[in-house]
């Protein structure tokens, strides 16, 4: 299990690096999905199969599908890759990378020196997760559901607004074209050849 954990961990880090550095949006998303799957394997190796399954279902299976969906709809082409290329110059990522490296070293030092709280022998089943979630952490669950509800209502409002606006706009634009064609007809008719009549 320990080897599995470290293998999946390395995979997650490498995949995430690729996700950041790929210029092509869909390829980057694919690496991000691999990274999420690797994190799920890590959860499984740590004895949390329920969280691992949720990670695959919700992050890799639902949220990332939405991301891919949006990228597909936008159909980012060569132009976007050029922009990415300009953004990924060494001078723009060298500074943050150095600072992050310092953090990583501190983190590694901290975890290496502190006693491990890891007990991979006992696996946390779905029942225990449920009891904890709706027992001692129920206020968190309620707050999260409130937030999601607000998001849902907001999205619904924005979507409705856009559709109403679009419909209005659509009507006026077709009206405009209709009058245009009419004026064209009139113009052609006045030119002498009366096809319209």
């Amino acid at each position, binding site marked *: 299990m320990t080897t599995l954990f470290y293998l999946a961990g390395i995979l997650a880090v490498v995949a995430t690096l690729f996700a950041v550095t790929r210029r092509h949006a*869909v*390829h980057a998303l*694919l690496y991000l*999905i691999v990274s999420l799957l690797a994190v799920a394997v890590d959860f499984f190796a740590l004895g949390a*199969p*329920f969280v*691992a*399954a*949720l990670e*695959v*279902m919700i992050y*890799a*299976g*639902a949220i990332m*599908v*939405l991301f*891919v*969906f949006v990228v*597909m*709809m936008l*159909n980012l082409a060569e132009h976007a890759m050029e922009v990415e290329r300009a953004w990924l110059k060494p001078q723009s990522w060298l500074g943050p990378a150095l600072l992050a490296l310092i953090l990583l070293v501190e983190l590694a030092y901290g975890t290496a020196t502190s006693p491990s709280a890891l007990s991979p022998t006992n*696996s946390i*089943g*779905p029942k225990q997760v449920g009891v904890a979630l709706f027992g001692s952490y129920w206020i968190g669950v309620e707050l999260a559901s409130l937030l999601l509800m607000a998001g849902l209502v907001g999205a619904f409002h924005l979507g409705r607004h856009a559709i109403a606006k679009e419909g209005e706009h659509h009507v006026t634009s077709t009206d405009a074209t209709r009058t245009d064609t009419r004026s064209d007809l009139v113009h052609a008719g006045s030119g002498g050849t009366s096809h319209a009549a």
Partner: protein
Amino acid sequence: MMAKFLPLLVIAVVLFVVLNLAAGLIWVERRLLALWQDRYGPNRVGPFGLGQIVADSIKLFTKEDWIPPFADKPVFVLAPAIVVATALISFAVVPFAPGFVIADLNVGILFLLAMSSLGVYSVVLAGWSSNNKYSLLGGIRASAQMMSYEVFMGLALLGVVILAGSFRLTDIVEAQRGMWFVIPQFLGFILFLIAGVAETRRLPFDLAEAESELIAGFHSEYSGMKFGMFFVGEYIGVILISATIALLFFGGWLGPVLPPAFWFGAKTMFFICLFILFRAGLPRPRFDQLMSWGWKVLLPLALINLLVTGAVVLARR
């Protein structure tokens, strides 16, 4: 020594059975469709036309495997592999008989749902990487459809989970000794059946490939064995959903006299035939009808089913 090799043996048997059944289903489907449409179907090659399976696979393997120059090559090649891989991995948690299961996870149902939600990528990525507007439309339809139907697919199963008190598939089957879950969870069964058909993208929910409007949609550009992978992947998906229905609602391997594996196989086969009957008998809905049906009718029904089941279980305790 034996204990070490037993899981490998189980894996080999499961792979052998599932892959052969998936190939055989191509023949079964064509014969059954023909039967319901008053014609013969493929009956020329070998006894009952069974040689048609071999002929079809030789044809698929020897066809020119062409990748369009405008396609995104790595993703184009990856996409058909995902559908077969996720469907086959799902069989890891399916118990064929007591003790005959590869990995009896305590989150079995969630594993099934997770794998089926990953299966969406194959269609979406195939549609996108083909770089063809019909394929892209198919991919977009598939992602919207599968996202919407996955939600209440999971919710429809939760009634069963409440009754059995476990996500583990063997526990769920054992909990049905007294009564199959199809009786207390009839609504859940209907909802899961609809979601299952949508999840495998079979008619009447095959809007992602709708040949009359999208000329095969997401796999327009695929040929040879890459197309064959989508084809076989679809049948593996059908077997998987049928097996899941048999396990969750019809008591899996439970049954009198005959060996458990027979009962499981017979129940699974019944639902596979039902899938084919759906294809023979039902027209395809419009896409907006499909979406509004999913969100406005089926999702609330699944939620009500879950609420009522929970309330009844709590009241009877």
